[in-house]
């Protein structure tokens, strides 16, 4: 059980000072909400409302389509105005349910399948998992993988370690930071619900050392509530990546191409733990989250409590609007976030931040030739050789790109971050992944 630091990684300036000390404020209700049916990894949810339907907050508007899928709930009350393709953070239009908000903000009663569970720590694990699915809970760190799936490993796999991820290693973002300060009890209780599912007594919460106040608070609470060990972790990106986090906390290395469960571990975000606690004890589906709106491109950076489906333009308005020299709006953090092209895009269950960068902070120079400095190699937390993969895929040598472990890349972007030639290495590797997978399919392996 060592606190080991992973190889590689980078030290971007954490930029969290803008919002770390600001309390979370409610963003309020926009006039219209757009709930994409695809807010998670897996099959898009199937809409079950049509134009003209009145919906209440917390009502299911799209149901899960398959095991790796979750339902979508209305995040406030109003009238369905359309169910049509709409702008989506990933770029391609996705089916979205448009709700005209009535302002009443009435929610459905928590009853039937959502009835609060009185003693969640001694409840049937399967019912708890069903509840987590019914509440539409997904990994809220950004990956948005359905939580009930993660909590349902095959029976032959024994899980002995549960880790809550409070690392928040992405620069700029402070959503988890604030959550840990505001709701430490709920986080620990959520963790205990997860522990109860696996019949375990204690789990871990990993927090980077650049957040001393949440560490102190969580350690305090952990001492009084028990069953939790708070692990302060070295500050290095990507400390919050699942495999690196497990490495740091338990010293186990998740094998290549395997999931954390292969080393008996389940990792959940702290926000997910709170969502689980609310779903189980209050019957609340996942309809809101904390989102950090930050960067020098927005006038008043804030930590906002947002409803899922709120157009990002509305959120930015709540923060005083964009500056005149705005050049980039990013959903998520600066290392792994997605640059957006329109403020119409709705926020989703995974929107942990909106980063607005002014023109002076956007790199626009075209890429230069690789000078083989090897910085990408030494920064890669997965022990890959990004420039080699880049060279192979640039020459259409897909087989070699595969041989050099393209598919092991976690797309943390450390390599692009350090590249002095400005080569978009992650983009090349993401592209290479597609080619490698296509080739493997073709070869039938």
């Amino acid at each position: 059980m060592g606190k080991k630091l992973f190889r590689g990684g980078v030290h971007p300036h954490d930029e969290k000072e803008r919002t770390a000390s600001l309390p979370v404020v409610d963003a309020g209700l926009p006039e219209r909400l757009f709930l994409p049916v695809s807010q998670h990894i897996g099959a898009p949810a199937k809409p079950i409302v049509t134009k003209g339907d009145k919906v209440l907050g917390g009502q299911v508007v799209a149901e899960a389509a398959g095991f790796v899928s979750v339902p979508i709930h209305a995040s406030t009350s109003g009238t369905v105005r359309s169910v049509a393709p709409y702008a989506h953070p990933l770029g391609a239009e996705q089916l979205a349910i448009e709700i005209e908000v009535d302002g009443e903000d009435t929610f459905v009663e928590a009853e039937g399948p959502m009835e609060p569970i009185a003693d969640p720590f001694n409840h049937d694990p399967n019912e708890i998992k069903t509840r987590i699915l019914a509440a539409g809970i997904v990994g809220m760190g950004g990956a948005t993988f359905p939580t009930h799936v993660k909590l349902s490993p095959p029976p032959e796999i024994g899980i002995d370690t549960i880790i809550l991820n409070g690392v928040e290693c992405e620069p700029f973002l402070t959503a988890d930071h604030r959550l840990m300060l505001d709701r430490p009890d709920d986080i620990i209780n959520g963790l205990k619900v997860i522990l109860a599912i696996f019949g375990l007594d204690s789990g871990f919460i990993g927090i980077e050392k650049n957040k001393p106040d949440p560490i102190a608070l969580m350690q305090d609470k952990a001492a009084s509530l028990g069953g939790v060990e708070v692990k302060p972790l070295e500050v290095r990106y990507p400390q919050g990546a699942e495999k690196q986090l497990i490495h740091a906390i338990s010293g186990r290395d998740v094998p290549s191409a395997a999931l954390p469960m292969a080393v008996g571990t389940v990792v959940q975000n702290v926000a997910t733990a709170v969502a689980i606690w609310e779903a189980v004890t209050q019957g609340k589906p996942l309809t809101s989250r904390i989102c950090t709106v930050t960067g020098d491109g927005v006038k008043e950076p804030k930590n906002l409590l947002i409803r899922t489906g709120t157009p990002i333009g509305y959120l930015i308005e709540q923060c005083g609007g964009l500056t005149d020299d705005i050049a980039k709006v990013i959903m998520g953090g600066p290392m792994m976030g997605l640059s957006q092209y329109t403020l119409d895009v709705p926020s989703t269950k995974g929107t942990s931040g909106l980063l607005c960068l002014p023109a002076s902070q956007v790199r626009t120079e075209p890429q230069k030739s690789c000078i083989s400095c090897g910085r990408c190699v030494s920064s890669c937390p997965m022990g890959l050789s990004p420039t080699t993969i880049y060279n192979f895929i640039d020459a259409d040598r897909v087989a070699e790109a595969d041989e050099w472990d393209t598919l092991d890349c976690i797309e943390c972007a450390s390599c692009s971050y350090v590249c002095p030639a400005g080569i978009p290495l992650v983009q090349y590797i993401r592209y290479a992944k597609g080619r490698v997978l296509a080739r493997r399919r073709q070869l039938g392996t």
Partner: protein
Amino acid sequence: MKPTLYITSSPHVFDGDSVSKIMWTVSAALLPSALWGFYLFGLPALAVTALCVAFSAIFEAVAQKLRGREVTIEDGSAVLTGLLLAMNLPAAAPWWLCVFGAATAVLLGKQVFGGLGHNPFNPALVARVVMLISFPVEMTDWTVSSGVLADAVTAATPLGEAKTFLMSPERGQLPQVALMDLFIGMRPGSIGETSTLLLLLGAAVLYVRRIITLDIPLGFIAALLAVTIPAYMLAPDKYLSPQLHLMTGGLMLGAFFMATDMVTSPLNGKGRLVFGIGCGLITAIIRLWGGYPEGVSFSILLMNSTVPLIDRYTKPRKFGFVPVKKGGEA
């Protein structure tokens, strides 16, 4: 109002380093040694340096124009090549040799392969070796006509003397040089190779700025010592002492500034160590038993040619490569 936004793949922040910053930093790190060279050898050294730098930049621009590429002399790589070349020349080098050297370095050493990043060999060393073989007299003319060392020393560098002695003992003797002079740089030689102290200073800057790592220079030096120490212990009357080996010739310049050239060295630490050791061994072999007094340039060039092979066989170990026993040592 709908602002026009940039859309790119992640990441959206960078550490701010660039190829040109790296090139200019290396050039700046060489500057103390170059200035020392001007001080020792006077105006001719300055002229040689100016010619090499200017013509490297000119040839680079011309070649890029001819190839229909963007002219990128402002990225400093041609300037650095010219500067490194000058550091490897004697101050007495005639002007045409400098122009020839710059042309060889930039055109034959770099642009024919596709420009910066594509050259397998260190351009400045390609030029130096071509010149050494083609114009051995001019390349080993250590006369100093002005500067501090004017007329103080005549013939050869310490390594040259040692080699003469080794080849035909009746015609020479092992040189007697004060180590302190070598360390500070009071000795003849190529413009930039004289002062071990200033070269180490520049190297320290590069190390702190994370432009070089220590695996190549340390591997280089360790391997050289591994051969020269036993040789000296066995036959001190025949071979130079290891300290002399360290501080003479272009060793410091080569180990810290030439062998560490990013483009022509391996990608990761393991590979760089192998590369450094290879350089050191070849240098030692040439110095002790070869026909040339000095082997740094040849060794680095030879090792340059092995870089693709080294890279191939020193693939980094990927995360999670060694599977952990299930439910293991928790």
